[in-house]
């Protein structure tokens, strides 16, 4: 069990590329931290630096108050689960799990006992004598977990441990990992590119992009109060709708229709130096087909309806004007051709028809306002 502190941790490669830029984070004991972001954002590099597999160019890494920058991985007492599981193919499941204990010169009787415990915790007891090649993907994943938990390390590091599993097994293993972490209470740092995993697993999420931390906070906070365009576009599925808008004295003017200023927007205009052209962000789930008192509405032809059972997604054909902001690159907010389309997540009871007109309502208090040049969320106090 450990507290892990990253103080201005930076990774700069020999060719000058900056992979991680001044990463600051205090991880409390027992905490489950998720590092998430698009590929190449520096999340795996950060994990490898904590593991000791990559050098820290500058900054300090502290485990339980002790600076460990220059310590070899084996002296940091942390375990890691790899994306490929990295099981030793020439060892049986039992030998794989026992390997870290053997290296630590734990007495043989002790090793057997602890391997048994770990195996039963992960339902691996019947497979202890098998070689990894004869296991299914899910079983291999559990062996990798077993090897990590068997020596009760100070912390677990997990590098996209579920990305090689099929969708159903991934959901199952997600709960297994969550339960295991809660039972053991071991500090865990978990890297993923999947925002659903990030939202469901972590106590706190660290969202990264191009080596820079974008926002740190509990999942709900990142969803409700995204600090900038990138966070808003990355968290949530389907992604937030973005429309270009002009600030006029009466209302926000968009191609889809005017949005009256509610209390939230008025405060944003008062608190911040708002440029005349802004980007409006509305979550698909903020829309409804019933009229919202004092709310705004868009009316347009429905292009496509996706019925998901518990909900319906309506895509509108209206072109709302292209948004050119590189803050939104790498997020799911744009389809390939870059044309934004408005998506509404609607109650399954309503009946949108493709090709017909539909009016969707929303409250101006659910609208986020972003500065197109800085990407900052103007509706947030701390922006």
């Amino acid at each position, binding site marked *: 069990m450990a507290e892990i502190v990253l103080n201005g941790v930076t990774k*700069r490669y*020999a060719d*000058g590329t900056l992979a991680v830029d001044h990463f600051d984070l205090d991880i409390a004991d027992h905490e489950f931290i998720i590092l998430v972001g698009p590929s190449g954002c520096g999340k795996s590099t950060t994990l490898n630096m904590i593991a000791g597999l*990559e*050098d*820290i*160019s*500058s900054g300090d890494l502290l485990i339980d108050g002790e600076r460990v920058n*220059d310590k070899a991985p084996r002296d940091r007492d942390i375990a890691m689960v790899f994306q490929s599981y990295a099981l030793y193919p020439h060892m049986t499941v039992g030998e794989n799990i026992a390997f870290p204990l053997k290296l630590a010169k734990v007495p043989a009787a002790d090793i057997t006992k602890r391997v048994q415990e770990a195996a039963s915790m992960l339902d691996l007891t019947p497979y202890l004598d098998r070689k990894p090649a004869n296991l299914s993907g899910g079983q291999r994943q559990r062996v990798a977990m077993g090897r990590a938990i068997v020596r009760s390390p100070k912390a677990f590091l997990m590098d996209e441990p579920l990305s090689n599993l099929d969708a159903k097994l991934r959901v199952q293993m997600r709960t297994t990992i969550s339960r295991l972490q809660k039972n053991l209470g071991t500090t865990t740092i978990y890297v993923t590119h999947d925002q659903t995993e990030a939202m469901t697993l972590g106590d706190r999420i660290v969202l990264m992009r191009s080596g820079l931390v974008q926002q740190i906070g509990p999942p709900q906070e990142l969803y409700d109060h995204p600090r900038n365009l990138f966070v808003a576009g990355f968290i949530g599925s389907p992604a937030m709708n973005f429309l270009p808008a002009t600030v006029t004295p009466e209302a926000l003017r968009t191609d889809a229709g005017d949005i009256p200023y509610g209390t939230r927007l008025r405060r944003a205009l008062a608190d911040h130096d708002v440029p005349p052209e802004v980007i409006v962000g509305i979550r698909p789930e903020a829309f409804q087909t019933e009229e919202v008192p004092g709310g705004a509405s868009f009316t347009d032809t429905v292009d496509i309806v996706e019925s998901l059972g518990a909900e319906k997604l309506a895509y509108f054909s209206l072109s709302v004007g292209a948004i050119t902001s590189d803050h939104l690159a790498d997020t799911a907010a744009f389809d390939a051709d870059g044309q934004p389309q408005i998506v509404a997540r609607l109650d399954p009871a309503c009946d949108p028809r493709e090709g017909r007109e539909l009016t969707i309502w929303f409250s101006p208090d659910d609208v986020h306002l972003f500065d197109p040049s800085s990407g900052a969320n103007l509706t947030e106090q701390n922006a």
Partner: protein
Amino acid sequence: MSARTEGARAERKLGLWLAAPAAVIMVAVTGWPIVYSFLLSLQRADLRFPEQQAWIGFENYGTVLSSPYWWNAFWVTLLITVVSVAFELVLGMLLAIAMYRTLVGRGLVRTVVLIPYGIVTVAAAYGWKYAWTPGTGWLANLLPDGTAPLTEQWPAIGIIIVAEIWKTTPFMALLLMAGLAVVPEELLRAASMDGATGWQRFTKVTLPLMKPAILVALLFRTLDAFRIFDNIYVLTNGAQNTSSVSIIAYHNLIGGLNLGIGSTMSVLILITVAIIAFVFIKIFGASAPGSERR
């Protein structure tokens, strides 16, 4: 640029230490001899007349390059190289496809094919020699009486080429088979769905994808064929104008003890090999294996 970190420095040090012994041996056994060879080529150096040793500039090169024996050996070597590599490519490709596609006795075929590769070249060469020796040989006895193919220039060169092809085609086939394995089966299925015939699938899909493997195999076999020695030494020992460049360089050294001329030939052979390699790598774009980083 930040200073190099502790780990990177340790890695560099370990890498250098691990690579050092191999590098030192390779440089020591080839580096100095090459320089020495070049120096010898600029001298009159005949072990039979040691007192005549002197620096003579590029005179040896003039001697060799104006010698009809050298040019005959050069063209014979080139002919053997081109003909045998061409046959090896075609035969090797057929063999590779057979080994790759066959289901009946696949293990047997793949094993048997390794025998020519594994056999000592000199041993095989004696087999060929006796087979074509009148009276002794079963192949010679198929010829009209009184013909002794190994004592005539062209038939002898032909036999040398056959011996060379027999021995090295399996190696070529194995390299090409590895290239065949690189072509995804799905791509070939897609091509046949697009209406390609078997021949079209081979020429339009398989061959282009195999190009790197083919070029590497050709490069290595061409350079290997150019240094042909063992087969000729046993079959004719260079008689009837069947010498390769390696054979006459050897005879100048061991038979003639003429270090100056022998070294000059060594240098010329080295230059020729370098040109061949350059042509393959620059013009055909053969990628040197191992050139990519980790």
